[in-house]
């Protein structure tokens, strides 16, 4: 049986009827075609599906879609304003903080959540915030540098 849910998705109100066993990740990818969030493990281990729910980073593969009812969901697709990138996205490009790009949306969302809560995090806080997001390409250094550049900019 489908359940009716209402929530804010990337700043727009949406209403949908959804089966109770569907995860938030499946709903985002299959119903809304928002494929920025990836399934890397389906078990909350890799962080590739990270989205923000009420400003908190969550593994969308571990949350049921019906639980999104009444919440505000932000995905990587909701960061840029048209062709104008979010400052964090631009910083990832400027610092070479991405390679294959598969972990990048989740990585950016975890970092974004940190910056929304704390605009000027320390390097240690950045590392902690992204340590649930696995990346096999970069060795993480340039990712941390990209986030720290935004932190430093915010501090000025």
């Amino acid at each position, binding site marked *: 049986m489908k359940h009716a849910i209402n929530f804010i998705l990337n700043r727009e109100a949406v209403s949908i009827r959804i089966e109770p066993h569907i995860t938030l990740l499946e709903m985002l990818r299959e119903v809304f075609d928002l494929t920025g969030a990836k*399934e890397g493990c389906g*078990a909350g281990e890799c962080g590739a599906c990270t989205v923000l729910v009420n400003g908190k980073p969550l593994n969308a593969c571990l949350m049921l879609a019906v639980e999104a009812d009444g919440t505000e969901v932000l995905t990587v697709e909701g960061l840029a304003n048209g062709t104008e*990138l979010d400052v964090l996205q631009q910083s990832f490009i400027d610092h*070479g903080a991405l*390679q294959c*790009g598969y972990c990048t949306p989740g990585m950016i969302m975890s970092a974004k959540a940190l910056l929304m809560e704390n605009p000027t995090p320390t390097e240690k806080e950045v590392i902690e915030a992204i340590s649930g997001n*696995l990346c096999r390409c*970069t*060795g*993480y250094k340039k990712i941390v540098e990209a986030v720290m550049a935004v932190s430093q900019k915010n501090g000025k």
Partner: protein
Amino acid sequence: MKYVGISVPRVDGIKKVTGALKYVDDIKLHGMLHAAVKRSPYPHGEIIRIDTSKAEKLSGVKAVITGKDVSKRAGLYLEDKTFLATDKVRYRGEAVAAVAAETKEIALEAVALIEVEYRELPAVTNALEGLKPDAPLVHPDLGEYKWGPIFFPKPGSNISNHYKIRKGDIEKGFAEADFIVENQFFVPHIQHCPIENHSAIAQMDAEGNLTIWSTCQSPYAVQKALSVAFDIPLNKIRVISPAVGGGFGGKAGTTLEGIIIPLAKKVRGRPVKLTYSREDEFVNSFVRQGMHAVIKTGIDKDGKITAVKNTFIWDGGAYTEYGVNIVRAGGYASTGPYDIPNVWTDSICVYTNHPVGGPYRGFGMSEIHFAIEQNIDMLAEKIGMDPLDIRRINGLRPGGKNATGQVVEVCGLQECIEEVAQKLAWSHKDKSSQPNKRRGKGIACAYKAPSMPNNVGSSAIVKLNEDGTAHLLVSAQDIGQGSDTALIQIASEILTIPPHKITIKTGDTDYTPYEWQTVASRITYCAGNAVARACEDIKEQLLELAQIRFGIPKRDLTLCDEYIVSKIYPDRKIAIKDLALGLSMDDGSGFHGPILGRGAFIPPNVRNTDKQTGQGEKPVAFWTYGCQGVELEVDVETGKIEILKVASCFDVGKVINPMLIEGQVEGAIVQGLGSALYEELILEKGIVKNPSFVDYKIPTAADMPEMLVSFVENPEETGPFGARGIGEPCMVPAAPAVANAVYDALGIRITSLPITAEKILKALQEKNK
């Protein structure tokens, strides 16, 4: 240079940071069906009976296939695999049947309804056991398979390749030695762990044309393998690789594509998608082969190595269609980057009932260097020499000879060693941070060549547009390493057209020209050369047209900032865009037509080595040399290692993009540290016990050490702007450098990977007994 050597931001950056890039699993096609696979529960067994009738009756199931639908063998170097098991299963997890259904859930339900009866066979779960004369045969029909002429399988045994090096006189070498030392090492299986799992979609139209969307590193190699396996001509198979979310070798060759083709053939034009789960990725895609090494070395009291005898036994797994070439590479590189006059090597690939071994970043080099580089330190200790000095004495230099007898022409190894020693303050010993901790420094060298057949090709097409922009078409795949950006930089440099005015299109066998494979750290070199030649072709055409237009000889014309300019009279110039569609004459007529650049490349003069001795003048396109040093601290109470600092230096010939190459090396360092400290596929009786990120840890941001990355630039004569490959070599020295640093800290030798806290504590207890 204006564009080469500059940190141009990644050209694929925007689509990746916005989540807009569609990887294969992101693609939804109209009417798409979903596949699921029935897999073997046994590592080795005969298939007695498969009953698919219940699955076929399930509502929503559109097709069911078994090995009968894919009976033809395929493989890159040795045609030993079928995409589904036919007569027997050879590893736990091997595909025996597959289903296409309206939803993934139905497909999974149908798979559970398929009944398979097996007769379990005794399994080979250790490569050393597999070599014994009474071992069960994994491939009794090996003698009937096809293989390339540079491989040496032994039908009637489990040996799928035996590669030999016989250089100099090994007995004479040992006789000259003051000390002879024999050491053993073991490297376990590991997994690539790209964050993107394998995924593929297949669709067959009414004319029999097959389209495959695949997360593959090598669309043309996939096209060829599928053509062989399914008897479909190449002009009827289109392979598209829209994006690859990390490869590291795991997405080279073919994996799951062949499972969905027979399904696609049965569903009247509907596309069929199969995406691996993380567990599948761990077990049912390529793994890095395990390896046992025995190294016997003779050394004189002055530190000169006089002879080495290597035995490398590789656990190739159930199919070694790709693995045989890793074993070959491990053989011809078996001395490491050292000049040793007398060498005897046996590098042997053994079939086992383990997951399928295949290419993994390093292609055998990480495995053999774990042994070689520890062995070098052990020799140094034996004669009371500093680990740096033994490398200074024996390390390759221009004019030296490597294991195949090749005379080394360009080699910055010694410069790399000195650079790392300086960055790591080698002779300075820091105090540990706490009384229960011990500090150590370790160093390891590495070399690697592109381990590919000698005559594999690359090609590129450049289309000049009438506004002076260009399209670059290649089938080199950007799998994260940054080839899209680097290849555009090479094109920009020659065409003098800035990178933002060049668009690259890759990975579609219907539209982008041939590339053998995106593997072997060969793309900047091979595809880079093809791109350079295509751009030179354009340049030549532009100068021809300008010569006619200006009446100035071609030799006095050049390209500069998007113009064709006279070298003598700089005001005589015409914009590239004005010649892009041909030359317009004053009388209104036209000449030549649109300008299209064509470039092709095969590494020059690379020849096979002697079959008996492995000796040859130029067995590979080039060698990349380098060195890595590690400083670490070990907690003697817990055994936990903390990597404090890593210094890496490689001779890359020419840095095309500093930011990208730095990122690539940093990634390799951390991936290498993962293999050094945590990573091992735990195999018990042929069963992978830890197929998840919870039980198989890979490094997180919290594991990142301080990284000091630098480069030496001794140009590669045949490389584009002097560049040679780096993607794999920079991972190779990580594990032995850690092992050597652990020894420096504690005086204990860990000769098997990974170097876990448990092993350290155990070794400390032994030592303190």
